[in-house]
């Protein structure tokens, strides 16, 4: 198939970039999501308000705009990489990390809400018992409540991660490319559809399979893990 001989390596590069976006964003989103969830259940009112405000803002703003603010706000206005004339980072790296940042923050608000609903499934007695034996808030969360909450929300958490993998496609709006200038998967697919108008169906199938190879294992893994680690009550 000449489509593969011409675009094979570009397709592979595109998906590797997408995968890299997904791995970094997923990791940071989970960590940040836990922090946000802790904020939202913490005894300090100000932290609860901030947590709620962040979650509300990012959940209701299109991801496209979040990415936009990351690049045009943080890089172009706030110069987080330093003054433009001194930036040594390549464009591809710079845009990549901004996409990771935007995806992480955006996704973390969903992780936070999933965790919070997980905390709601932990029976009252667990936390009360923990308090009764003298655990502090942080010990209570860390040792008793969060481990149980996490285990009960593996499936919805996987859904969040799957959606995040699909959301990496929005990175096309700020021009995330590899060092050799290949776009992430959705941008690469668009380029190919523009160049090869006669093979659009085939191109679509190739890229769909590529995404299914990334999203389906996450779902299966979560299904298996949620059974294995189910909290039996």
């Amino acid at each position, binding site marked *: 198939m000449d489509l593969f001989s011409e675009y094979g390596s570009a397709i592979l590069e595109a998906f590797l970039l997408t995968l890299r976006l997904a791995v970094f964003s997923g990791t940071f989103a989970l960590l940040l999501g836990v922090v946000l969830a802790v904020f939202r259940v913490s005894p300090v009112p100000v932290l609860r308000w901030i947590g709620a405000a962040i979650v509300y803002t990012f959940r209701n703003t299109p991801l496209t705009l979040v990415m936009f603010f990351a690049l*045009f706000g943080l890089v172009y206005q706030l110069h987080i990489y330093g003054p*433009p004339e001194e930036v040594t980072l390549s464009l591809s790296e710079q845009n990549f990390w901004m996409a990771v940042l935007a995806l992480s923050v955006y996704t973390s608000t969903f992780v936070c809400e999933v965790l919070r609903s997980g905390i709601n499934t932990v029976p009252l007695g667990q936390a009360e018992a923990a308090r009764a034996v003298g655990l502090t808030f942080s010990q209570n969360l860390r040792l008793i409540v969060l481990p149980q909450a996490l285990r009960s929300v593996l499936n919805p958490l996987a859904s969040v991660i799957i959606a995040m993998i699909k959301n990496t496609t929005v990175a096309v709006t*700020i021009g995330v490319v590899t060092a050799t200038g290949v*776009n992430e998967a959705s941008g690469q697919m668009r*380029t190919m559809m523009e160049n090869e108008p006669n093979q659009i169906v085939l191109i679509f199938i190739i890229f769909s399979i590529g995404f299914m190879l990334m999203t389906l294992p996450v779902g299966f893994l979560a299904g298996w893990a949620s059974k294995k680690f189910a909290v039996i009550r």
Partner: protein
Amino acid sequence: MKLKKIAAIAGALALAGSLAACGGSDDTGSDAGGDKIKIGIKFDQPGLGFKEADGDYSGFDVDMAEYIAEGLGYDDDQIQFVEAVSANRETFLKDGTVDMILATYSITDERKAEVDFAGPYYVAGQDLLVKADNTDITGPDSLNGKKLCSVTGSTPAQNIKDNYSKQAQLQEFDTYSKCVTALQGGQIDAMSTDDIILAGYAEQFPGEFKIVGAPFSEENYGVGLPKGSEDRDKINDLIEKSFEDGAWEEAFNDNLGESGYQLPEPPTVDRY
């Protein structure tokens, strides 16, 4: 009973949808009375074809379009501008959505097979826009290690990377105005597209940018017409007339005069 309510909500949504659909479609011109001329222009290219926030249209293409329409016997209020995005230009001419197109529309053999062209009324070339004080970018082959901005899917940028400066870094955005923002902020070093389009952006910031002036392609902008149009000769005459009576130069100076970009010689109309 619940279902009825849902049906009612669904119905309301459908109604809203169809109402909005009616509201949205009137700018594509359903009133195809013979006394109007529908001209396809760009809406998003300042200095060339641009829809202002107050609803007016401005630009070189717009002025030329008005001149031609007037010459064909239409009043100003008989002209209706329609947004012609690049991908839809041929189909718009074929299915009668527009009567003619002036939208940085390059004459190519491929397109000539599908539509007719009058003109060219302007010869543009792919060029680079840099900050006014930049001295080290002199042409497409001086971009190694530099950051170059263009719009998504545009061949010009890829052309530079493939044929001139292999080490150039590409930034792609969906609009040139974002490239301009990045160029102003120093996040990129140059942006590339047709020189007259670049001039339109330079015009918005007099003195801040300059066009390098080393064009590395030739684009003949023509007036797109439906295949077999009877107005073609007349429009060719009008284009030549605009070169002579100063209307062409005036259209340029009114819209791009402060860009620092010099008006080239008028092209020769190609009556193929």
